[in-house]
């Protein structure tokens, strides 16, 4: 594999059709990285890994989840108690959310102490901060979906936060809830954000983040 002397038949077959070998080499054996890259450099890749795990488990949860105040709690209970391996998918998703935040934070701290955000990598940092913020918002919106006491009052207190801002504060609170109090309207609103809008935004920002890191390469150890 990877353009060694004994290339596989599959690779040769592909090579004949769209010259894949050169491209592969350019991205593997001929792509140079700084020496002594240590284990901390895996944190960004692991953040991507857990994001993919969240997307996959999330899609599976959506197949049984019902985003209404009457049915949400019961549908999660059904997933956990009745659906084969539903408990596993639900728990990976909820623990995965916490893990993702830890990994993203750790990745940020690594970049911070390695001073890896300096020119020319300013935009890497900024896109990273957006990714961190989006990760937090995704966790916050997802937390409401099981419609438990904790999620309901967590969402109530959380959406109340902008309320103290002058002029637009009250408006922001009502826009985020879609009603005076957290209600079914809030639930479907958060559901749409959690399953479509935020993951799409994370994907876009992550794509930007990766394209830039390919262009500049990683900042090596000291």
């Amino acid at each position, binding site marked *: 594999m990877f353009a060694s002397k004994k290339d596989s038949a599959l690779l040769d077959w592909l090579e004949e059709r769209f010259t894949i070998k050169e491209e592969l080499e350019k991205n593997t054996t001929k792509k140079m990285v700084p020496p002594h890259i240590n284990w901390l450099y895996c944190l960004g890749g692991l953040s991507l890994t857990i994001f993919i795990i969240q997307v996959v488990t999330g899609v599976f949860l959506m197949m049984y989840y019902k985003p209404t105040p009457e049915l949400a709690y019961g549908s999660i209970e059904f997933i956990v108690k009745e659906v084969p391996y539903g408990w596993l998918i639900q728990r990976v998703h909820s623990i995965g959310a916490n893990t993702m935040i830890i990994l993203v934070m750790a990745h940020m701290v690594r970049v911070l102490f390695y001073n890896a955000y300096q020119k020319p990598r300013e935009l890497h940092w900024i896109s990273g901060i957006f990714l961190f913020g989006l990760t937090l918002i995704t966790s916050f919106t997802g937390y409401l979906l099981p419609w438990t006491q904790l999620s309901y*009052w967590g969402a*109530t*207190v959380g*959406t*109340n*936060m902008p*309320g*103290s801002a002058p002029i637009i504060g009250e408006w922001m609170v*009502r*826009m985020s*809830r*879609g*009603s*005076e*109090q957290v209600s079914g*309207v809030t639930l479907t*609103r958060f559901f749409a954000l959690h399953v479509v809008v935020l993951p799409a935004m994370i994907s876009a920002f992550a794509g930007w983040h990766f394209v830039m890191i390919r262009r500049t390469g990683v900042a090596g150890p000291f």
Partner: protein
Amino acid sequence: MVDGTIDSDALSKRRKFIKGLIGFFGIATVAGVTYPFVRYLQPIKQQEGEGRVEIAEADLPPGKAVLINYKGNPAVVINTGGGYIALTAVCPHLGCIVKWQEEEGILFCPCHAGKFDTDGNVLAGPPPRPLEKFPVRVAGGKVILGGV
């Protein structure tokens, strides 16, 4: 069609005009599309006249309180012994639901220990303003909020 029949000056003028036109319609389109989406997300107002709540006096002995849903929001109706008082049950601090403490005669918010008297005034804690008071009347053995 650059064949000499149009001089470059006129061409660049025309391009400038087209650019301006596209810019104008671009902004107009963004504004025109944003407005309905923002309106779409705004909370839908409750119909006026709805939200008449009646509580049987027998269900609300002196010193007790009940939580009701009044015009879509939680409200608390208290029988202080000297009369009935209706207040919003939503703490103005973070939106938690206040609880009636019979022994102390106060309303207590479980989130940050805000305390209110039976008129809704803040006695302690972080709430920035008093609880809103609703008019109550008694008729035919019933405590009535709202309606006419």
